[in-house]
């Protein structure tokens, strides 16, 4: 019966959340915004690319002056440029449309910018002036260097591959840091997205006066666990919807969107850091969930609950004020306190786990602490729900709640 009811609660809670228009508005708002941004980037990129292509075929007509003596006239000519014969009136001629574009190369490119003047061709096409002005200098420099390799070296267009060793074994760099930190990102996403829903969800029985009917048909633990599971599923759905545009963009429109290259094959998923990260995530989730359910059970309305809820959420962000200390000086007393204080522990420990400064013993202690406090918080939350939600319009007195035998 309990399992049947758990399934029923999960199904009801999940279905009714995802059936709401409000949910989809909130969930789709970010992907749609991202899609719009990506669309603009795509359009801009396509335009720039097509302009570049067009530039190759239809040269951009421009004149230039070169105080730096870096510009190779042959290169400039090949790109459509001619030396300006009357620099004093060039800008005015561009202004009046008599001249298409004029570039003024300064004596020192390090100290001064290249001044680019052109007739307006729209926000996307105007970018081609800058591109051509730079291309003239780059190609001229390559000509002077006389070697593409040397040119690439000067521009820093090359990669390195490093390998470090720890205890006789190859130690990871950023490739090993990133995977465990994914749990940190996931933790933030899940808690931030779901915290309000969790709070509202447990308040709902009270606000709708259905507590007694629920408590006589359903074990409160089943109800609370069912809500937690359904909200986790809701969070997973939201995460998928949020990530979908980025993944689709990265996989299918990577070049057009000018997305940076992530060589995922370099990521190293090490067993212990990943296991510790996963356990910290689950323990932290249980702890925060239990606390939020407890707040919902004690407070009569969502408005009252939000006043207590805010400080709990703030504690999630406090570790980021000392993130540089967490990374560079993990033995610092403050970092140690943040590592073991339950509400700051998930974030601090996940950061330290990612950067490899969380010892096995510390990890075990934090994980055990999170699970113990998490389960305790859930038990207290269920107790408070059982007695708090029956108070309906009143705030539950904790003394009264814990005075009851239980």
């Amino acid at each position, binding site marked *: *019966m309990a399992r*049947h*009811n758990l399934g*029923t*609660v999960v199904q*009801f809670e999940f*279905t*009714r959340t995802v059936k*709401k228009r409000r949910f989809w508005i909130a969930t789709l708002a970010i992907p749609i915004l991202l899609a719009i941004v990506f669309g603009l980037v795509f359009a801009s990129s396509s335009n720039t690319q097509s302009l570049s292509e067009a530039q190759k075929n239809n040269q951009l007509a421009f004149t230039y002056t070169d105080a730096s003596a870096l510009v190779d006239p042959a290169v400039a000519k090949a790109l459509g440029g001619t030396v300006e014969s009357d620099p004093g009136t060039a800008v005015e001629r561009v202004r009046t449309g008599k001249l298409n574009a004029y570039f003024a190369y300064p004596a020192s490119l390090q100290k001064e910018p290249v001044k680019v003047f052109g007739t307006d061709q729209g926000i996307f096409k105007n970018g081609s002036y800058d591109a051509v002005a730079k291309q003239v200098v780059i190609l001229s420099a390559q000509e002077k260097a006389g070697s593409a390799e040397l040119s690439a070296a000067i521009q820093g267009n090359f990669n390195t591959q490093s390998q470090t060793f720890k205890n006789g074994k190859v130690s990871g760099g950023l490739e090993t840091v990133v995977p465990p930190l994914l749990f940190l990102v996931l933790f933030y996403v899940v808690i931030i997205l779901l915290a309000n829903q969790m709070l509202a969800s447990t308040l*709902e029985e009270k606000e*709708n*006066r*259905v*507590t*007694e*009917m*629920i*408590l*006589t*048909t*359903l*074990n409160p633990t*089943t109800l609370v666990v069912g809500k937690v599971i359904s909200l986790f599923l809701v969070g997973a759905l939201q995460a998928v919807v949020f990530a979908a545009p980025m993944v689709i963009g990265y996989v299918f429109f990577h070049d057009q969107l000018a997305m940076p290259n992530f060589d995922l094959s370099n990521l190293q998923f090490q067993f212990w850091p990943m296991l510790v990260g996963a356990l910290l995530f689950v323990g932290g989730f249980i702890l925060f969930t239990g606390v939020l359910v407890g707040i919902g059970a004690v407070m009569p309305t969502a408005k009252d609950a939000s006043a207590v809820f805010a400080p709990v959420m703030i504690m999630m962000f406090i570790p980021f004020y000392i993130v540089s200390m967490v990374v560079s000086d993990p033995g610092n007393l403050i970092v140690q306190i943040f590592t073991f204080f339950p509400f700051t522990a998930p974030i601090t420990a996940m950061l330290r786990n990612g950067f490899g400064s969380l010892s096995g013993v510390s990890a075990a202690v934090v994980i055990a602490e999170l699970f113990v406090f998490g389960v305790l918080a859930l038990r207290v939350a269920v107790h408070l729900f*059982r007695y708090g939600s*029956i108070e*309906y319009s009143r705030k539950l007195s904790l003394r*009264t709640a814990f*005075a*009851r*035998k*239980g």
Partner: protein
Amino acid sequence: MSNDLSQPLVHIDDFHMKFGDKVVIDGLSFDVARGETFGFLGSNGSGKTTTIRALLGIYLPTSGILEINGRVFSDDYGARLGYLPEERGLYKKESVLDVMTYFGRLKGLTRAGAQKFSRDYLDRVDLADKADVRVDKLSGGEQQKIQLGVTIMNDPELLILDEPTKGFDPVNRRLLMDIIEDRKKAGATVVMVTHQMEEVERLCDRIVLLKDGKSEAYGTIDEVQNLFGGRTVRLKYSGTVPDSPRYKVVLRERNYAELALDDAVDEADVLRELVSSGLVVRGFVAAKRSLDDIFIQVYGEAEGASAQAQAETAVN
């Protein structure tokens, strides 16, 4: 679990309940037999709802035995229970059908079974076209009908109704009475927590009267009436009813009055006295004291008046 049908379905023995230092229930004991309709009576604050909540495991008792079907209540029994709590509500943002199906599923029905019951019930109470409407879009009376449907959708063997007519309009009050009759015919046990004496006299086989957490009277209605003794004379008349040491006028209307008599007083003497005073007596019926009278005696004039007022509001 007890399957002995001779055993009471509800058994409460020496139940004590304290909230902090405040004693709410003080040694309450009573049984509810299978198939009977039982009235659990008391004034506001006398401990009725607390007792029901403790019986249903919502509160943990300070001490005592509270059992249904031979064991302490657990949510497993929820599939056989129909409970209409004093504080009522439904998930307001969901559709009627979704809410009914959800509760039906929690009470052990299959999805198809819960939906079938829901549609049949909605048809019965003329709300078939509201199945997909959100609960908060329904009128108060329509929500009450849904609430009643949810209460009985699992064909409960035990129906506990806490202040069942509270806030109900006359249409839903009638619907509730029909439901109680149906459940009685089906052999269900009904516990009515109320202070509506008219309903109790009409429906209940036995009652317990609770005052300040203690039982004041317990038994059949006849037994309780006998326990408090006295009789009531229902009088139709013209003129003015005189005061007399033989009786007390407990209700006085234009051509109707109710007189409370002690056991020692002979009705014939009262009738003679009324006639000799010049009163034109058009009707004179002596009967046992009404539960209303007893209620007023037990709980005092103020509570009695309050109960009477509530009863009249519900009726009107």
